[in-house]
Structure formats: structure tokens, C-alpha cells
């Protein structure tokens, strides 16, 4: 974990989202899919807490080496609005990489990646690492409307089969990613499922994977105070490995990636709602420079 005052290399609009690329070599070279950074807010405002941004991509090689990219949803809250209004050449105080990363399957090859809205951003970093290890990647991505489906073209580039769904049918099928899951699992012969997003979505993924005996990993979103294990507020109810009981784990240091079979969804109030999008804290996404068509210096 490193702290950096990271320069903003570029910031650009991507559909409903704002993408920020930061120069943070020490963090970028350590970052792995599923991890996040904690971005400090300005001191003269009345919103205090760091924003926790899932790493969409970290570039360790090539022309963009040493950069991190993440995605925020303008208007989701004062912190993400502030982040989305930052301009290139400014800088922000970030701490990272934080949290436990996704792990990669050793033998199994067919991976299905599932996400909704901004949470999808974190899955591209994972998808690229899986492809680099010779895995087959399929994706199910969704949003409320066309603008909120994150990078559908990049999803097609990265994966074999892509299912796109929107609540209003403006892009892909009408419906939710949860509705589209069974068919996507069957068509791609999924052997491992990865998901990122709000508890309600992850709970549905967990139920499907339990029924079909599929191993899965989910990256949770829960309100965090600090992001590095100090405050104990980002609680996730988790069964002990030996099944002898349960306790609240911390999403920031024990997660954010968990085995969904161990999460006690009934004890997690947010999992009982039908919200598939989380509000702030936002998710960070790093971009694939090869796909970059926007202005970069």
C-alpha cells in the first residue's frame, strides 16, 4: 500500500460516466483486479470521507505504464461530482492498492463476468488478466439505460460472448443482468463466475452459483469510512471457514472480493433491496490504452 499525490493525466466523458487517468507508478505496478484506491476529498468542503474507487485498469507496460484509470458517476454524490469535475494536470491524494484481489482459476477455463452499471468497470482489468492466462471470458453487463452500460464495445473486444441488457431496452435485451444469467451460463459453458456490484445483484449471482455448484468470487460495494481497516464500518456478514459461526468482515481489508457462498446475505440489509447499482463510493476503472480513442496527451 502506497500513498501518492497523483497527477491527473486525462479525464473524459464515457457515456454516463467520467473516466480519470492518474499517474501513480508505485500503485499501478502493484495493483491487481478487484483492488481499489482511496481518494482524499478537498479539505475545505463539508464532505469528508475518502472515496473508494475500484481499479478499472492499471497499466504496467507500454506507453501508459504507471497509470491508473477509474470511473465515477457524476451526480451520484458530492464526492464523485467533485472527482468528475477535476481537470487534467491537477492532482489528488490517493492511497492504494487496497483490498484483496480476485484470484484466477488454475485449471478451469470458462469464466463469466457479471456486472451492472459503473461496477462493470472493475471487470475489464480482470477480464484482460484472465485472457492473458488463456482463459475464455464471457460477460453479462447491464445498465438502466444505454448510456449507463459501461464500454459495451470493449466488452465485445475482450470476450467471446457478451450479453448486454438494459432496464428500458435501449441497448441489448430489456431486463436485468440477473434475468440474463442462466442463459449466459449455459451458452458459454461457464465454470467460474465473477461479479461486481451492489449486494442485491451479488446475492442473485450467489444463489445461481450455489444451485449450479459453480465456484464464484464477488467484489462487494459497502460504505467505507477509511478503506484500510481502521474504522470497521464496511461490514459484511461472513460465515467462518469451518462453519462454526459468523462475524462481520471488513470489506476493505478482508474483501472486497469474497466467496459468495460464505456471505450471509440474509443478514445484509442492502441485499434485501432490488437496487442493482450502488451509490458512492464509486468504482475505479483503469482503461485499456489500446481501446483509447479519446484525447490523451
Amino acid at each position, binding site marked *: *500500500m502506497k500513498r501518492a499525490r497523483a497527477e491527473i493525466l486525462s479525464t473524459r466523458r464515457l457515456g454516463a460516466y467520467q473516466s480519470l487517468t492518474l499517474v501513480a507508478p508505485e500503485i499501478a505496478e502493484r495493483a491487481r483486479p478487484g483492488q481499489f484506491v482511496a481518494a*482524499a*476529498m478537498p479539505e475545505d468542503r*463539508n*464532505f*469528508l*470521507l*475518502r472515496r473508494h474507487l475500484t481499479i478499472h485498469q492499471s497499466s504496467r507496460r507500454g506507453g501508459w505504464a504507471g497509470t491508473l484509470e477509474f470511473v465515477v458517476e457524476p451526480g451520484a454524490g458530492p464526492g464523485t461530482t467533485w472527482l468528475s469535475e477535476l481537470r487534467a494536470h491537477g492532482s489528488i491524494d490517493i*492511497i492504494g492498492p487496497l483490498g484483496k484481489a480476485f484470484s484466477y482459476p488454475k485449471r478451469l477455463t470458462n469464466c463469466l463476468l457479471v456486472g451492472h452499471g459503473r461496477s462493470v468497470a472493475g471487470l475489464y482489468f480482470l477480464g484482460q488478466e484472465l485472457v492473458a492466462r488463456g482463459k475464455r471470458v464471457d460477460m453479462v453487463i447491464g445498465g438502466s439505460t444505454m448510456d449507463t452500460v459501461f464500454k459495451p464495445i470493449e466488452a465485445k473486444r475482450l470476450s467471446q460472448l457478451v450479453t448486454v441488457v438494459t432496464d428500458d431496452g435501449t441497448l441489448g435485451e430489456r431486463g436485468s443482468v440477473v434475468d440474463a444469467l442462466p442463459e449466459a451460463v449455459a451458452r458459454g459453458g461457464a465454470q467460474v463466475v465473477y461479479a461486481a456490484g451492489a449486494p442485491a445483484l451479488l446475492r442473485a449471482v450467489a444463489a445461481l452459483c450455489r444451485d449450479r455448484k459453480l465456484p464464484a468470487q464477488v467484489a462487494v460495494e*459497502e*460504505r*467505507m*469510512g*477509511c478503506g*484500510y*481497516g*481502521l*474504522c*470497521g*464500518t*464496511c*461490514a*459484511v*456478514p461472513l460465515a467462518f471457514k469451518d462453519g462454526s459461526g*459468523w*462475524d*462481520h468482515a471488513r470489506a476493505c*481489508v478482508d474483501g472486497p472480493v469474497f466467496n459468495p457462498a460464505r456471505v450471509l446475505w440474509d*443478514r*445484509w*440489509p*442492502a441485499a434485501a*433491496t432490488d437496487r442493482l447499482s450502488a451509490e458512492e463510493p464509486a468504482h475505479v476503472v483503469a482503461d485499456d490504452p489500446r481501446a483509447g480513442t479519446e484525447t490523451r496527451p
Partner: protein
Amino acid sequence: MTASIRRSLSVDLGGLPIATPVMIAAGCAGTGKELGGLVETRRVGAVVTRTITVEPRQGSAPPRIVETPSGIVWSTGLQNPGVDVFLLTELPEWTKGPPVIVSIGGGSLEEYVRLTGALQGRAGIAGIEVHLSGPDEEMQRPVLGAHVDRVTEIVGAVARMSLVPVLAKIPGGVDVVPLAIAAARAGATCLTLTDSPPALAIDLAATRPALGGPTGWLAGPAVKPLTLRAVADVARALPRMPLVASGGVRTSTDAVEALLAGASAVQIGTATLLDPVAPVTIAHGIAAELQRRGLPSPSHLRGAVAPIPVIASEGTHT
């Protein structure tokens, strides 16, 4: 330079000497092992553990934190592994850093007695802070420490048993002076002023409280003026009692104000979450202020503010 600053910054909290007047508040330093990677802990005056109870507690349901204007409303429900596991697995981690003050909490006199007994004679514990803001299971009251009878009884029992200094953490959002006097008479060697006041945040979209736990507590810069008032009132009532200001101290300016109001040291809670190095930068800022004023130690700032008008504790709002 650093050595001279540390020497000049040391203060004594009723038999508990600390190298700088800046401590990390209870519940803001994880389980003892997280802090080492974030800050040079030897440059922190002291650290208070999360509150430990007799039995393990799973704590409040999430969400446990929500941002409010210049503050946070939080509720962890005192999640902790219980004192037995704490002594076995956590205390060895805590003792690698600065002086450790163990925060203890409970709902009955017996629990506090058992906790003090369990900590007695353990190496590496510099002090005990008595958390008094939880519900009182014996008396069926919402806040145990909001009543003089119970503060006297519980702080008295802990102080009589303890071999190390005892800090009583007075609840917030109540009339603190009678409680502070009770804790001092009962044998507390230092008072922490104050715990977070109870608060409520509402999730408008869901039409329910924003937190999963039964009670939320307000922390952050929003509570600083309340802390300063509590410190000043108690300092006047108990001029010789060491006081630790806790609540809303984010910058060295805030810390200096707390010392001027009558505190001997400050605890940093929310600000540590925002910036883990805050306890060190605040100590540096205090040193700079001492140099600017030509004072040899933080104790010379203590209570140096002009007389503070008497208001709340006498019950006459003017």
C-alpha cells in the same frame, strides 16, 4: 529536530506520560496491525484500542457509516472478539506501537470488573479507557454513563482494581460537568471529553434510518465546538484534572484550540480515517505553534484562553 520536538511535546495524563499530546481515539485504529503500514506509529502519542467487551460482539448491521455535513454518523455496535481473544491475538499487535490504552465497555458493573481483572498485570497496557456510552443492561437505561450514580459505581470499581491509569470517557450530548466530577471523585486519573453524541441520519429514498444499527453517533469537524465547550466547562470545575479532548479535532489549529480550552491532549478519530498521518502532522503543528508563542511545552497552552463564560452546566441559557 524530531527528537527535540518529541521531548518538548511530552505531556503527563495523570501518571500516564505520552511523547506527544496527540492520541488516536478508540475505534479508529483497527485491530492493531493495520496502523503500522500507514503511519510511523512511534510518532503517535498513544493509541486507544477499539472498545473490548467480555463476550465477542458481531456489532451493528451495515451500513455503519454515513456522511453528514462536516461529519459522519456511525455505528459499529462495538464489534470486537471479546476480551479473551483480544488478549491472545490483538494485544501483541497493539503493543508493537505507541503506548496502548485499552478501551473497555459493558452493560453491567460485573462486566467492567471482569474486564479490568482480565487486563490486570498484562504487559504492554499503558492505561484503561472506560467507555460509558453503551446501554445499561442492569438499570435499563439507554446510556449507562449519562447518570452520576453509574459513573461513580463503574469508574470507581475500575479505578480501585486497575494497576494502570484510568481514563473515563464521558458520554457526549449530555450535561458533562456532573459526570466528570463523579468520575474524578471515583478515582479516574484522566477524563476523555467526550464520546460522540447520539445522532440520526435518514435515508430519504428508502424512508428509513440510514444506518443498520439502533443508534448512530456524530463525529468529525461538526462536533468540535461541542468538544471545546465540554472541555472548557470541565476544566473550570476540575482545574487539576488532566483532560483529553475527543471529537472534531482535524487540524493542528483544532488541537491548539482544545489545549487552550483546557485539555492536556487530544484524541484524533475521524481525521485518522481521512488521513492516517494526521496524528503526526497535528503534533508537528502543535510544536510549530509552541515555537511561535515561545512556549516550552503543550502544558503552557492549557487553559490559556481568556475566561470562558459560564453557561450550560449551570442550566441557565443566556
